[in-house]
């Protein structure tokens, strides 16, 4: 008779009880794994956004919509554009505390015959840029020539293909690493390329609401503050002293996101904790009821010479035989629900969402298995410990 025969036989003889135990552990594993992945993905998204921005302060035209547009572009990948005079860049650079200031120029392509897809086009100045270039450098070592573009991970165009923007065929030379933010849906190119595309758009009759020469406009200025200066004060100085410019501290821009993330993470943690406690309580109860119903069986085994340790091992084996498949199923269902539907979850939450790296996911899965099987084992052992103290002689004589 094999060592696992008795536990296996017991589980097999009580299919309903076995199913309930496995289902409980499955719920436990699912809630822990998917809750952890969800929280980590949201955190990852926010960190990725903050890292990718690299700027302490961002200055945009002081129109009512520009700040909101920028935030939506960065977080949700909506398209938009707004412009201000290029001379604002010089004024910003002259502001006390500004270490580096790099302009960006935005354009949105259309869902129309002139364009292959609607995307946000972001032009950056390779001379001064400190946000986009390091990102591009991760996947492309050259400079972007006229009309060449690098695309975010969610743009449906591969390297070597061409994107049609206002009747210009732009070759894709790089595909950027995902950030889990709106930046993944944008197309990046030089300022020269955007100006070329701006001209093309205007010549096709699109009103981009540019006052003056497109050569003299920019959309936003990304600012790095010198050591010893307070970014908040620099932003306030820019907003106060430069006409029609609003500067915002990057961290402030993401405060709302961070708050939402904390709110969601808090809810998820509470839910997971509640599921855990409930499942653990039910597990303990089920094991106590189960072992109580099997008092005589355990007494027979004790009387036959099974030591308390052997008895505990047998109960543990029984618990492992049903909790391990349950935990594996829970993690599997969690993975099957979360990973294929990343984009849907991101759009439903409206927050940056970036799955953790595979190594971390595997670690999380392993930790979840350990925790779930551990909880079940704990419940089983507590019941077995109570039972192993029962006097087998009395139990069997009682005939109860």
């Amino acid at each position, binding site marked *: *008779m094999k060592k696992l025969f008795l536990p296996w036989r017991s589980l097999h003889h009580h299919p309903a009880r076995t199913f309930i135990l496995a289902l409980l552990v499955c719920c436990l594993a699912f809630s822990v794994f998917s809750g952890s992945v969800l929280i980590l993905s949201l955190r990852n998204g926010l960190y990725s956004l903050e890292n990718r921005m690299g700027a302490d302060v961002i200055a945009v035209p002081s129109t009512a919509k520009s700040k909101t547009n920028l935030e939506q572009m960065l977080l949700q990948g909506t398209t938009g554009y707004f412009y201000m005079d290029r001379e604002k860049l010089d004024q910003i650079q002259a502001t006390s505390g500004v270490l580096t200031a790099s302009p960006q120029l935005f354009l949105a392509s259309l869902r129309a015959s002139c364009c292959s897809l609607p995307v946000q086009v972001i032009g950056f100045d390779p001379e001064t840029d400190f946000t986009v270039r390091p990102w591009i450098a991760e996947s492309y070592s050259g400079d972007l020539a006229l009309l060449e573009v690098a695309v975010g991970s969610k743009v449906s165009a591969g390297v070597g293909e061409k994107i049609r923007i206002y009747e210009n065929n732009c070759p894709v030379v790089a595909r950027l690493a995902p950030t889990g933010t709106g930046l993944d849906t944008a197309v990046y190119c030089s300022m020269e390329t955007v100006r070329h595309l701006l001209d093309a758009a205007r010549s096709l009759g699109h009103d981009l609401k540019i006052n003056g020469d497109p050569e003299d406009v920019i959309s936003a200025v990304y600012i790095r503050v010198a050591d010893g200066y307070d970014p908040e004060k620099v932003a306030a100085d820019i907003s106060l002293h430069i006409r029609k410019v609003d500067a915002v501290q990057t961290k402030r821009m993401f405060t709302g996101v961070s708050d939402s993330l904390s709110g969601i993470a808090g809810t998820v943690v509470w839910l997971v904790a509640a599921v855990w406690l409930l499942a653990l309580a039910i597990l303990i109860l089920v094991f106590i009821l189960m072992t109580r119903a099997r008092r005589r069986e355990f007494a027979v085994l004790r*009387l*036959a010479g099974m030591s*308390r340790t052997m008895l505990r091992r047998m109960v543990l084996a029984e618990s492992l035989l049903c909790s391990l498949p349950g935990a594996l199923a829970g993690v599997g269902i969690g993975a099957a629900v979360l990973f294929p539907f990343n984009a849907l979850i991101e759009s439903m939450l409206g927050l940056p969402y970036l799955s953790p790296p595979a190594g971390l996911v595997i670690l999380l899965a392993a930790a979840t298995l350990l925790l779930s099987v551990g909880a079940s084992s704990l419940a089983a052992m507590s019941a077995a410990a109570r039972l192993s103290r029962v006097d087998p*002689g009395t139990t069997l004589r009682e005939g109860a």
Partner: protein
Amino acid sequence: MAIVEFRDVSRVYRNGEHEQRALDHVNLSLEEGQFIVVLGPSGAGKSTLLNMLGGLDSPTEGTILVNGKDISTLSADELAEYRAASVGFVFQSYNLIPTLTVIENVALVKEIAPNPLSSHDMLRAVGLEDHIHQFPAELSGGEQQRVSIARALAKNPHILLCDEPTGALDSETGVLVLRLLLSMARDMGKTIIIVTHNQNIARMADMVIRVKSGRIQSCEKQEHPLAVEEVDW
């Protein structure tokens, strides 16, 4: 040769200030291969005696030697090892595991006992070789008790401890079970110790021990025990 020796064994249960002496300075010597019956009224100390010998309890005073080894000072795990190797139990209630078939109920001791015997052989010995794949609920009371005897014997113990083994059986089936137990002593050399209220069973024993108030009242050897068939049931 004495297989079991009780030397001045006492067992006292204390509950607060109340003290109950379940065994009181018991001295006993039991020989191998004998069919021994322990008689006495309820509360006389029969079960305590059986518990001591079965390694389910330890004396508060005295020494119990089994095969020359002192079991009165063994730890819980050592007592479990002793039970696995040296003693088998048969109770009035058959105590079979309902989720296991007949053969599985017997074979489970293979996971526990160090020198188990063939489960099939033991079931053949008790006349149940045709029922091995049935579950306990499908058997009669007598058949279930025979399975429990086969299970106790499958451990290959030196001593078989039986607490009212025929108590739940009709007389015809009881005779069958007793005949089986007697043959275990006569043919297999096992020491069979039966605790019972039934005076008739004592007539077929090699030795009859009478217990009263925790003391051995008498311990008499019977030179010519009756055969099972000769006993008036």
